[in-house]
Structures are given as C-alpha cells and as structure tokens.
C-alpha cells in the first residue's frame, strides 16, 4: 500500500521534516532526525529506480485528481536517475555536515541550517519528480529560497552579498521560467507535461511558441549556471559553508539541467527545438566557449573553492555539449557526466571542507605542505581531481569517452579535438593545487592532523564512487543510455 505512494512520500518526508527541525531545536537531535530522513529518502529513491527499471513509467495522481486536471508526479528512468543522485548526495553530505557545520556555522543557527537543508533537498526532489510545468516553478523556488539562506550562513560577510546576487539572478531566472510556462498555458490550456507535449506541435508555427521557449531556456540556463549566465555561481560557492557548497555544486545545477532536458526533449520535443529553431547551432559553440573561458578562469584563481566553482561552470559546458549533439551517445555522455560530475565535485569540495576545518581557509596560499599535513584528505583530492581531468579508470574518463564518441559519430572531429584539449586546462588547474599542496613547504611545520571520521567517511564514499563507477560503468551508463533513448523517443 505504502508502495503506491512512494513518489509523494519522497517529497513530503523532507518537506514536512523541515519545520519539525525548527521545533526540535536541539543540535544533535536535529542532525539525527535529518540523517534519518535523508537515509529514508535514499531508500525510497533507490526503490523507485528499481521499480521504474522493472515496470516502466510510474504515474502518481496527487490527491486522487487524475491528470491533466490534477497535478501528476511522473517517474521514468530519467528522473528516477536524478532523484537517486540527489538522494545519494544528500545522505552522504548530511554525515559530513555534523562536524563541518558545527565548525563553520554559528551554534544557534544549526537547527535552521538543517531545516533549510531539508527544504532545499525537498525542492530539488520536487523539480525532478513532478510532471506538471507550474509545479516545477514552485519547487524551483522552494529549493532556491532555501539555498539563498544556506549560502548566507557562511562566515565571511561576502557570503551575504553573494547570496543577494544569487537571489537577484535566481528570481530573474525563475520569473523567466514562469513567463515561459504562462505562454505555454496560453497556447494550450494545460500545464501537464504529457498533455503539453501532445498539444504544442499544433502551435509550432506561432511566434508565441518561440518566445515561450526562449524565456524558458534562458531561465533554466541561469539556474544551471551556463556560461555566460554563470556569474552568480563562483561567489556563492566560494563563501557558502563547505557542506553547502558541496551540496549545491553536486545537485542544484544538475537538477536545473534535468529540468532543461525535460522541457527541451519531453515537452517541446527535439524536432521543434533542434530542427526548427536550430538550437544546437547556438548551444554547441556556447558550451565550447564556456568550457574554455571558465577553465582558463579556474587556472588563475587564488582560492581553491573558487577554482573548483569555475571548473563547475566548465563542466556544465560539457553536459550542454552532450545535449547539443542530439544523439543517443551524446545525451548518454551528458547524462553520465551529470551523475559523474556530481560525485567528483562533491568529493573535491568535501576535501576542501576537511582542509577548511583544520586550516580555516580555502586560499591556495594556505595550502602549502598540505600533502604532508593531511595526507588522506589530499589523496582523496588528487583522486577526485584525476577524475575531473578524465584520467582512465575514473568516472571522468567514461563521460569524456561518450562525448568524444558522440562528436566523432557526427564527424565533428574539431569539436572532439577541442573537448580533448580542454582536458589539458583541467590538468593545469588541478596541478596548481597539487603543486602547492605537495611541492611547496609550509612556512612553519604543523603536525599531521586529519579531519574527524564522519567527514572522512563521506568524502571517501564519494571518492570511492568516482573510482567504482569508473570501472563498473554498467549501472550509470546503462541507465543514462535508457534515459537518453527515452528522451529522444528511440525505442531500444
């Protein structure tokens, strides 16, 4: 019985737990509660993926109102995959948060932190699960509002201004999305995605359709931090508490890309977006420019968090590139990279979090001799960094492989070459950190002191995942491939 209500439970559990956190107030109690909720969500999300892989699409009518009148939650391989990803990250990070948040966030704000964390989690899951266009906006705002609050919890006063700038951009993006959705409703009279996809083709010739898609895609591009709409991201990531940075880097932009995929492929359809509007001719150059510009910026950063933030912008370029290929291989590459990048970027930011806990700074200059001082943490950083570069045996290689294969499939070898060359830039910025950490002596020797074990555990779980999924690509690639086929409407 409870089985049938899995989709809604997945959203309601964290959503309802958030205010409960505020009521509980006591620090450890709140943490334990949040931990249980995240674990339960992880369980439900994995169950959902298994069910979807077995039985196909699950449709859940909210409150018993049948779609298209009521709101429908619709789970297929694509979003089951994203849901699982978000749940894994949330569960791993809540463990990390126990010592890390205790260090970086004022004690009287802890319960608020966990409340906002759960709210953000609920919002992201909501975006992924819903089959209703307007609902996407609502959940988007739930996650965004809570993430503004999460970022503002950072110790540095610059966190406030970063959060404010993100708020302006986020709201602008969300409002663009509302405009897009409103225009779609105006044309078709429905908000249900499945319904929209049936009725929109009749409107393809109209100018309204074009405008609606333009608003939607720009709005989502802002939320996904696609170059050049990424400017809110570096500061937000840099000054937020470490655990928040890791969480947002691994999930928020990824979910936005999911929403972009959903609107582009399921609602509008590849035929309209890519054949009529030629969107790919815009997307591919933009993503390539983004990859290079952001990677170059990453090279010159003096703060490790900012460096990684710019690298995130570059990595989003790779995902967009995969989407731009509009082929099963390309989309598979994009989707796999979405998953893989979440793993490795979370692992990297967690390693930074460990260092911040012990050293109190993520400035590159303070990382001298870190290889000796925190060898275990730096080992994780290097491994995840190798993954970022795309070294074989790591997940990064798997996604790059598919992207390059997709480019070659189309015969676009210059793009394949450019994508390959851009890895060199990743080598440079990862090397900058490694060089400082391993080859520069610290000014005054400090004893070896690692971060507490909960942080180590969650960091290594994610680092291990980057290695495991690099070898055992069965799960990720197969699911991504099915998802890609589903999005393109190709029957396997």
């Amino acid at each position, binding site marked *: 019985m409870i089985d049938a209500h899995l989709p809604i439970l997945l959203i309601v559990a964290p959503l309802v737990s958030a205010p409960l956190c505020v009521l509980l107030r006591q620090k450890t109690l709140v943490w334990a509660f949040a931990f249980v909720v995240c674990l339960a969500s992880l369980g439900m999300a994995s169950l959902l993926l298994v069910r979807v892989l077995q039985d196909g699409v699950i449709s859940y009518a909210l409150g018993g109102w049948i779609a298209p009148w009521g709101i429908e939650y619709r789970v297929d391989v694509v979003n089951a995959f994203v849901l699982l990803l978000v749940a894994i990250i949330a569960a791993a990070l809540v463990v990390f948060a126990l010592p890390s948040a205790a260090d970086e966030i004022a004690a009287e704000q802890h319960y608020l932190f966990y409340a906002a964390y759960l709210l953000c989690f609920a919002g992201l899951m909501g975006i992924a699960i819903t089959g209703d266009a*307007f609902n996407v*906006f*609502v959940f988007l*705002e739930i996650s965004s*509002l809570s993430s*503004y*609050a999460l970022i*503002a919890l950072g110790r540095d*006063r*610059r966190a*406030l*201004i970063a*959060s*404010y700038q993100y*708020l*302006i951009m986020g*709201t*602008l993006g*969300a*409002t663009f999305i*509302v*405009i897009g959705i*409103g225009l779609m*409703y*105006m044309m078709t009279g429905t*908000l249900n995605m499945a319904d929209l996809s049936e009725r929109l083709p009749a409107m393809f010739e109209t100018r309204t359709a074009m405008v609606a898609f333009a608003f939607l895609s720009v709005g989502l591009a802002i939320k996904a931090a696609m170059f050049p709409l990424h400017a809110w991201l570096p500061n937000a990531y840099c000054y937020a508490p470490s655990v928040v940075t890791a969480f947002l880097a691994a999930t928020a932009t990824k979910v936005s890309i999911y929403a972009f995929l959903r609107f582009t492929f399921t609602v509008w359809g590849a035929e309209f977006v890519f054949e009529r509007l030629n969107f790919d001719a815009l997307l591919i150059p933009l993503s390539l420019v983004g990859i290079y510009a952001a990677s170059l910026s990453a090279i010159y950063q003096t703060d490790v968090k900012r460096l990684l933030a710019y690298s995130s912008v570059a990595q989003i370029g790779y995902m967009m590139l995969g989407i731009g290929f509009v082929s099963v291989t390309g989309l598979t590459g994009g989707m796999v990279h979405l998953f893989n990048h979440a793993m490795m970027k979370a692992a990297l930011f967690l390693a930074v979090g460990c260092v911040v806990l012990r050293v109190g700074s993520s400035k590159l200059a303070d990382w001298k001799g870190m290889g000796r001082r925190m060898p275990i943490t730096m080992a994780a950083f290097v491994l995840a960094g190798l993954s970022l570069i795309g070294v074989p045996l790591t997940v990064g290689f798997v996604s790059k492989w598919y992207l390059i294969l997709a480019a070659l499939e189309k015969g676009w070898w210059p793009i394949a070459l450019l994508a390959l060359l851009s890895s060199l830039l990743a080598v440079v910025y990862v090397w900058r950190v490694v060089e400082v950490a391993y080859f520069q002596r610290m000014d005054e020797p400090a004893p070896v002191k690692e971060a507490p074990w909960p942080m180590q555990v969650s960091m290594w779980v994610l680092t291990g995942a980057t290695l495991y999924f690099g070898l055992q690509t069965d799960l990720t690639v197969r699911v991504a491939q099915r998802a890609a086929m589903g999005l393109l409407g190709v029957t396997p």
Partner: protein
Amino acid sequence: MTVGLFNYWACVVLMLIGLYTAIARPNLIKKLIGLGMFQVAVFLLYISMGKVSGGTPPILHTSGEAYSNPLPHVLILTAIVVGIATLSLGLALVVRIWEAYQTLEEDEIVERDHD
C-alpha cells in the same frame, strides 16, 4: 489590434521598468523593488490571460454565462506567495548586509571587500 492587446503591452512596459530599475540602481533595496515590479508584471500577464471578455467571475450560479478562467488566478496566488517569500528573504539579507557593511550601494560593498 494594438488596442486589443493593450493589457499585454502594459505588462511589457511594467516588466521593462522593473528590469531597468534592477540594472540601473546600485542600491540593494531599489534593485529588489525593481525585481518586485518585474514579478508583478508577470502576475498581471497571467491574470489578464485568464480573463474572458464579458465573462463573470468564476462563481457557481445558475445562468450559463461565460466565466473567466480561474486556473491562472489560482496559480498566481501561489506565485504571489513565492514573491513575498523572495522579497522578505531579500530584505532580510539587506538588513544583514547593512549590519556588516554600513552601506547599501552594491559597488561600494564590492569595493570594501576588495583588498
């Protein structure tokens, strides 16, 4: 034609005023006001699209007259709530920023952190 679409033109003008304010004013509160205007313009867009000319309010009564589409109005109710939340969060941030920097001009704030 132009007159028939008057309500939409009004929305567009409001939107542009809001956006212009957000861009042109370095003051953090004025930016929020601009953003608020922009959002409200979008709300108006929704509401006016639900209006059926000559229709009555969508309240159940016996005569079979045309009535306005209630769904956009309901949606905008949600959006208004979201807008209020955004605005209040933004203002709360502005209060904290004022406490930290003693100024509300964005360029000055960035200048102060620049070292």
